[in-house]
């Protein structure tokens, strides 16, 4: 492949974009005003949907390429619906479908796609930092849809949207994340985004699944779930991928459920108005008991619904759409 010549100039992209940032690589890199602008825009789209009005076709004539090198159902369909709602086109390339991928470097794959002149690239990849490599190589905006254990920023933003909906204000909000923190990109993105918005974040899990020096990120780490849930406004439960853990990290699913599964019994130790969240898909009976999944404190399906609006907001803003909020007239 020849010398790197992005088809668009990076400065042009950021100049035409009200966020002033080219790509969404992770929440660690987002400032409070970025998050507020994205959420404002997402609530604007949600208000339009609630009024059954027409979405603005701000992605009309534009193409979003979605590179998914890891299995995904909800994130992928959420991005696809988001683009379609705004009148945009999507092309999905998966690991299986992309014969160009064989023996090719990641940056070469991305440049090949850029040569077809899409307007935005969405990437899910098993290797941490892969969207950063692509972002440096390409002129178009890149949205990280999950990179290894590193970040999953759109998940964190939809979590924030849901929290804002139910709790209103982030300052002083106490959020506990429970589960396999070490291998969770959701945990990292939520920690950074919630802290930026003024929330106090704690984590809880077996010591084998808490990453080294996690407290250096400004969170409190617990290994006792009953103690951890006390006084929390939100308990965010992560999917435990037992098949991915080695036997030295967790003895069994049953033992995990006994010590770290969130059940009706756990709720007795929580504040009565606690919110239960989960990024999905849920292992019913492992990390969450079925009655809690379907119970009155669960906002899991609200999270899924908000995911579409957050991703619409990101498409809209990164491709040059105007800043909007709930009160903006259509």
């Amino acid at each position: 492949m020849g010398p790197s010549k992005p088809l668009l100039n990076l400065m042009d992209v950021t100049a035409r974009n009200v966020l002033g940032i080219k790509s969404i690589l992770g929440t660690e890199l987002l400032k409070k005003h970025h998050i507020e602008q994205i959420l404002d825009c997402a609530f604007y789209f949600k208000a339009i949907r609630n009024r059954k009005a027409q979405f603005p076709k701000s992605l009309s004539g534009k193409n979003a390429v979605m590179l998914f090198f890891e299995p995904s159902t909800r994130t992928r369909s959420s991005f696809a619906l988001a683009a379609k709602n705004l009148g945009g086109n999507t092309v999905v390339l998966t690991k299986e479908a992309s014969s160009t991928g064989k023996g090719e470097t990641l940056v070469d794959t991305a440049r090949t796609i850029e040569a077809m002149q899409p307007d935005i690239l969405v990437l899910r990849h098993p290797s941490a930092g892969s969207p950063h490599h692509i972002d440096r190589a390409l002129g178009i905006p890149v949205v990280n849809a999950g990179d290894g254990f590193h970040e999953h920023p759109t998940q964190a933003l939809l979590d924030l949207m849901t929290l804002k909906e139910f709790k209103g204000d982030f300052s002083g909000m106490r959020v506990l994340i429970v589960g396999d923190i070490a291998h969770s990109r959701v945990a990292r993105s939520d920690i950074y985004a919630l802290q930026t918005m003024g929330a106090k974040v704690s984590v809880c899990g077996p010591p084998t699944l808490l990453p080294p020096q996690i407290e250096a990120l400004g969170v409190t780490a617990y290994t006792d779930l009953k103690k951890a849930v006390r006084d929390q406004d939100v308990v965010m439960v992560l999917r435990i991928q037992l098949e991915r853990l080695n036997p030295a990290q967790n003895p069994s699913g049953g033992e995990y459920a006994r010590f770290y599964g969130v059940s009706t019994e756990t709720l007795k130790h929580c504040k009565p108005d606690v919110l239960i969240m989960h990024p999905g898909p849920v292992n019913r009976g492992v990390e969450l008991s079925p009655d809690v999944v379907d119970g009155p404190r669960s906002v899991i399906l609200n999270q899924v619904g908000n995911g579409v609006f957050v991703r619409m907001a990101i498409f809209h803003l990164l491709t040059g759409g105007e800043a909007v909020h709930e009160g903006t007239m259509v």
Partner: protein
Amino acid sequence: MSDLLIKNGRVVDPSQELDATVDVLILDGKVSALKSGIDASAHPGIRVVDAAGCVVTPGWVDMHTHLRDPGFSHKETIQSGAMAAAAGGFTSIACMANTKPVNDNPFVTSYIYQKASSCDVNVYAIGAITKGLEGKQLAEIGSMFEAGIVGISDDGATVQDSYIMRKALDYSRKFDLVVISHAECTCLKGLGVMNEGVNSTRFGLRGNPKAAEEVIVARDILLAELTGARLHIAHVSTAGSVRLLREAKAKGIKVTGEATPHHLILTDDAVGNYDTNTKVAPPLREQVDVDALIEGVKDGTIDALATDHAPHSVTEKKLNTITLRSGW
């Protein structure tokens, strides 16, 4: 050609406790005078180099390099490695055994010396400890010694079996060969690609803990004490390893250690841009480790600086889209 006058440089040569601004006169390829104000006109036609503002030293020695030849000449050859060494001021280098085939027998050793004979610097071969670097059976250490090896090491493929390592140390005594240990416990390293710590947590990359190095440093020091053999710890990277080395030396155990420039200068903060060039073995550590290494160099706990020059091709350091085997 072999006559040279280097004027006005700061000449440093620890072997004769020299650190002064003097001229160096080289006649017939040999240093024939070290003194101020050597007159070039006394030597008609001699090449004169003005080294004002420069440090002039004897040729440097790099005891830890990888020349990739035989087997991986797309990365490096003995010739290109020797040229790189000369360009960096090194006149003697030693090359590790992880070639293809492995330097675990006298034929490969002889091949290396044959290639080296036409190079501009002295190239010394280090033999493997075990056949094929597999950690199971001792290599033909004696025969390689006769062919000229100057030490033995399985380098990146640390001997995990303590019994084999003990026997290698025992066997090395017959030839008074130094056993060089790349100290890294494979089990503890796991799939780690960078130092385990707050940065691996932040970057979402798997960590390789300092203990993976230190348990092998401790083991090999105990085995050196047990066997009385000469042990050298390659590229020491952690404060804990420096402490173990210092304590072992105080007890009179025959152990030495080296540090690389990158471990003395960089920390794992450098990994934050996901540049795969920051992936090294052992990984870049933290500031406390850099500080301890510098302290170790100052107090003599670290005996040598070595580069661990280990070239890969540019393509190999890029992320493959699907497999990701390279790069990280």
